[in-house]
């Protein structure tokens, strides 16, 4: 009694209809996302292999990972280097090409398409195989270098293999470029006019006007590319197999190898969750720092 009254839940006919419409998505999301994610979290604390009944082992997988796994830190290091070098380079390149494509040049749409194509094809096995043949010791790239009188480079040797894989990642700048193109077109021209009047040069206008205005898109591209980059698998698997000497042993490859070569599904799940935590951590840091460098038009 008193001030608390049970509020009757009434769902209108239209709301019920709406529920039915979203039900396929909800069921699919539950079956193909939530349940597998929850299962993976459970398995990360077990000794699940190919066929055994998983037995709860507590933190054993994580302790092994941080203290006994001889390739864990190498894989993490390779992944961090790969991500934090290739992603900024890719974004910078995408912005550069987008800036060039904002000029009034003939055949602009053709250039846009050609630059965008690698981001559609680049993640495929076929392109990775092509990359392998381009960069192998007696591949086309070295043949060109030799014909130019330059020495052949060991593109797939221990020193250069990560760079070779990174070049493939940077080559797929098209999707970021398209977003930058849209953002650049939306920069109000009055700002540039005002800056012109004040005598600001091209570089100053770029740094003080263009970059701040498109900074939300830079943030979006940075986050998306970082998150994807941490999970890359196809290129190192096809081109180098994670070698030589684990120099291209990205974390995605380690997770795959532990699951499907070593059949340690529980341990592989534990590795996956460590990756999730790392990605969330880095994302949070970027979000926190974004208050400093991302321009918020609403709040000035």
């Amino acid at each position, binding site marked *: 009694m008193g001030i608390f009254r049970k509020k009757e839940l009434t769902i209108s006919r239209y709301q019920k209809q709406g529920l039915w419409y979203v039900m396929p998505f909800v069921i699919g999301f539950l079956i193909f996302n939530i349940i597998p994610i929850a299962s993976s979290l459970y398995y990360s604390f077990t000794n699940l292999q190919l066929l*055994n009944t998983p037995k709860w082992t507590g933190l054993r997988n994580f302790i092994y990972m941080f203290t006994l796994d001889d390739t864990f830190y190498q894989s993490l290091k390779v992944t961090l280097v790969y991500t934090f070098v290739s992603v900024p380079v890719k974004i910078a390149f995408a912005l550069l090409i987008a800036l060039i494509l904002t000029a009034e040049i003939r055949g602009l749409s053709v250039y846009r398409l050609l630059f965008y194509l690698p981001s559609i094809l680049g993640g495929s096995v076929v392109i990775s195989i092509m990359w392998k043949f381009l960069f*192998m010791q007696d591949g086309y790239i070295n043949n060109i270098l030799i014909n130019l009188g330059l020495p052949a480079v060991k593109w797939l040797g221990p020193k250069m293999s990560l760079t070779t894989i990174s070049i493939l990642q940077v080559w797929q700048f098209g999707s970021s470029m398209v977003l930058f193109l849209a953002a650049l077109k939306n920069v109000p021209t009055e700002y540039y006019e005002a800056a012109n009047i004040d005598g600001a040069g091209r570089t100053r206008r770029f740094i003080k006007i263009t970059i701040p205005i498109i900074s939300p898109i830079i943030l979006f591209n940075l986050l998306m590319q970082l998150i994807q980059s941490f999970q890359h698998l196809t290129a190192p698997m096809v081109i180098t197999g994670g*070698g*030589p000497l684990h120099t291209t042993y990205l974390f995605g490859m380690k997770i795959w190898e532990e699951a499907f*070569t*070593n*059949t340690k599904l529980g341990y592989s799940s534990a590795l996956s969750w460590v990756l999730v935590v790392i990605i969330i951590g880095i994302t949070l840091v970027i979000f926190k720092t974004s208050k400093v460098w991302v321009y918020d038009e609403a709040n000035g």
Partner: protein
Amino acid sequence: MKKLITAILVLVLVCQLTAVAFAAGEAVTIRFSWWGDETRHNVTLAAIEKFEAANPNIKIEPEYMGWDGYHTKLKTQIAGGSAPDVMQTDVKEMPGIVSQGKVFYDLSTLQIDRSGFDAKFVENWGMQDGAVIGLPTGTNGETSIFNAELMTKAGIPMDQPLTWNDILEYGKKFKEQFPDSYMMLLDPNQVELHILNAYICQKIGMGKYGPGNTRNFSEEDLVEALTYIDELLAAQVLVPFEQSSVHSVNQMENPLWLTGKVAMYLNFTTHIASAQKNSSFEIATGLFPSLEGGKQSGIIVQPAQLITISANTQHPAEAALFVDFFFNNPESQIALGLNRSVPAVQSARELLASRGELNPVLNEAVNRALANIGETFDVKTYNGELVKILVTAVEAVGYDTMTPAEAAANAIKLIDAKLAEF
């Protein structure tokens, strides 16, 4: 009226669907998976065709692909409970799979004629806890595969046993004579098995690992083997890893081999057919290299592949009928030929010999390996994690990032830690 027509149409549809269901219910479908190249796919499909013609109520659904990723897919299917009924499985993968439970059917409980197989061969490679879990398709032995023309030009004998030291010395002279060519081609994974493993086993007179977590070789043994590999690479006797590792899936497609710039290749006899098919020059074989003063030949002889039946198959009798036909039926034996090396079944060997189809080069290489078979090794030789440690040591030496002593010390430490987990 409309309702009547609708009712009649629904009735007709139901009857048709029922008829289809009944018809389908009479036929049994067996899924059969294997890996191989185009030639193997064609001969296997031909054998399947023969079986289906003889057994119209059994349909074989083929699932084939290349070597790369085959066992990853198979293990995923096994884990998901959707393994094919009949599976071609690699010997190296068997220990890892069977250690985790009952994956394969006990073939001794099915109607499969196993009298044509060598009982010892089946016992060594196809049994688990007294059950016959796999039958060998062909006999595979380590061998030297030569570019006969290049070896002859270089004046290197193919009919005499070569020691590892012979290969190094001949290789140095070969490089002086043919600066653009190499004596031997192997990628790091192949070096680990066919040089490092062989060298050590020949030196110590037994397999690298014993029961439990026993390591039979010492750090010094490993240093010696890695030093030899280092010498091969330094003298450019062996193709540099930058050029061999790119073609690790099939070295017979390496341009260096195809253009006749490599004199010899070490691998199992199952590669002879591919070498003969891909190469424009004559292929010869010789005894696998040995260690001077070695205690055993170290030559591995194993099944080319094993044919297994899934423990979860819904049609064990039909699967057994197919497997029996695959191995023992003359039409199947002719169709399959020597694609899976010299057949393990005696009747198949006799049939192919009577038809003049027993590839003399392949047959000679297999018989040679069988006559010089090494001591049986522990299955841990094929343990993926232990292999990876040694491959990394080979790569470290091959890419000059570590000396043989450093690489050996590091590898021993990691191997012992891994063995402690077994």
